[in-house]
């Protein structure tokens, strides 16, 4: 699993690639909470997510809630089919801001 962070006009783009599971999700959680903690808007690029489990989803929820508390924007972009199935199972597909393109996501977070 790769978790790469880059900056686009002040917005942190966190690109996840591979399997986000019990082994790898602590790294994702750390990266997301770092970005949110630094009060940066965050877009998680999930186009490369081949698998995500409940622990990966929990990391997303935790970052989302922390962002809300500090009035920071948090969204998902280009969610892969595999990841979307799991978000639907968790009933989070209506909770998270999900954008089909990075451009849409950037527009939404005002980046």
């Amino acid at each position: 699993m790769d978790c790469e962070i880059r900056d686009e006009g002040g917005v942190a783009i966190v690109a996840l690639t591979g399997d986000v599971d019990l082994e790898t999700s602590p790294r994702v959680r750390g990266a997301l909470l770092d970005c949110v903690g630094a009060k940066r808007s965050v877009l998680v690029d999930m186009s490369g997510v081949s698998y995500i489990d409940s622990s990966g989803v929990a990391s997303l929820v935790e970052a989302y809630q922390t962002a809300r508390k500090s009035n920071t924007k948090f969204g998902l972009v280009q969610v892969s089919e595999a990841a979307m199935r799991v978000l639907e199972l968790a009933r989070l597909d209506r909770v998270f801001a999900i954008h089909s393109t990075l451009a849409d996501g950037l527009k939404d977070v005002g980046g």
Partner: protein
Amino acid sequence: MTAPEVGERIVELRVQSRADRLRVVRAVVAEAARSAGASAPCVRDMVIAVDEACQNVIRHAYGGRPDGEIILQISRLDDRLIFDLVDFAAPVDASVIRPRDVTEVRPGGLGTHFINECMDEAVFRPPPAGAGNRLWMTKRIE
């Protein structure tokens, strides 16, 4: 040879209770399901459920201990696959394990819900002699 009630075994897998073994577990479930003729969405759901069940064994039954034994047997009974998951941890009171209300947004507590959604059936059964717990999951091959 296996008795009909148990189905025809496709594969049995043994791993230790470690997060870094889940990749191998998922690969086996996916390939066993595919070779039984399951469609991609059906394979995916089987993988999700077994992964979550193994996670629960690792985190809850074995409490994070990395050297617990996990045995997964995958077998076929007519048009269903059976996933029979056995551990050697202390027996758990299955009645306390229930999915939470997922409309409440909070981290954690999703595993049981995923298992119930992805499988047709998921029940604790009396474990074999010497074992701790046995989760029995079935799903129709679609």
